[in-house]
């Protein structure tokens, strides 16, 4: 309850209906001190415009880049970010947490 996110799901639907390619990235798991809780999401269109947040700014750039691939391929993927996993991803969360982000195409 008490969800204060701007209405990004409405934007996802509007973009899709306007003919844009759209992806949705959702935090599905967090460990340690993650800035945004599970369920937080980011919606991205094929122009690179995005709304919402999954980390408060730490990893959004990387998520947007991945989302572009997902819009192209249509295949969902799971991303993991955090200081504990430097080999897979170069973007660390400065707060020391780890997050898993599910990225899927809308439509």
């Amino acid at each position: 309850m008490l969800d204060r996110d701007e209405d990004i799901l409405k934007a996802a639907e509007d973009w899709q209906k306007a003919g844009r390619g759209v992806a949705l990235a959702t935090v599905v798991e967090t460990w340690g001190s993650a800035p945004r809780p599970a369920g937080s999401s980011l919606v991205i269109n094929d122009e690179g415009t995005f709304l919402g947040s999954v980390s408060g700014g730490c990893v959004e750039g990387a998520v947007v880049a991945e989302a572009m691939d997902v819009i192209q391929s249509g295949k969902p993927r799971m991303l993991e970010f955090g200081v504990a996993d430097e080999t897979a991803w170069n973007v660390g969360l400065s707060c020391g947490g780890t997050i898993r982000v599910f990225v899927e195409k809308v439509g």
Partner: protein
Amino acid sequence: MKLAILHELNAERAARRPAILVTDTGSGEQRLVKSADFAKDPLRIELVKQLRMGKSGNVEAGGKKLFLNVYAPTAKLVIIGAVHISQALAPLARSLGYDVTVVDPRTAFASPERFPDIPLVAEWPDTALPPLNVDAYTAFVAVTHDPKIDDPALLHAFERGCFYIGALGSRKTHAKRGDRLRAQGAKDSDIARIHAPIGLAIGAVSPSEIAVSIMAEITAVLRLPPKEKEEAA
């Protein structure tokens, strides 16, 4: 996410009905469970628990890892009475994430100077309440001590099924209130829903402490499972 699911989810959110999106994070398969279907869903125990806490999270079922994304409406708090307690209660509730509205037909009480930045409706409840869309995600608090204002407001709250209904007053004044409301058509089960005396018994003295006891009680009703709720009350 399929466009049809997104469309349905947005419709539920616009109607202020909770819904949970279940995603198989392995395959990407998804389904939307609307609140009306929770009871017959195989994941009902998990769904109800996650919804009560307002938290999204993972569960394992049938060898699959499922992510339950909870979409719950923003809770509202409607305060009848622009009194001293309300001046402490409104900002406290807002800091807890509630959409707060204060209703009081007495314009001397419902003045912006006394309630900076809080939406105020200086109208009688029969005019003020219908547009506020009081619903099952609304906590409703009547604190004017004036039956002309509190009583019709409480009748409205019963009708709309607010998750919490509280009213100021001692046991004696509450008994009289029960008689008055029954005379106006309220059922015993409606009267029983009123938390009165309002708030948890924490020995609150000042308006701010009473506000804390009220918000603590509202939080308990919102978050605790039914059995623990009874024990806390």
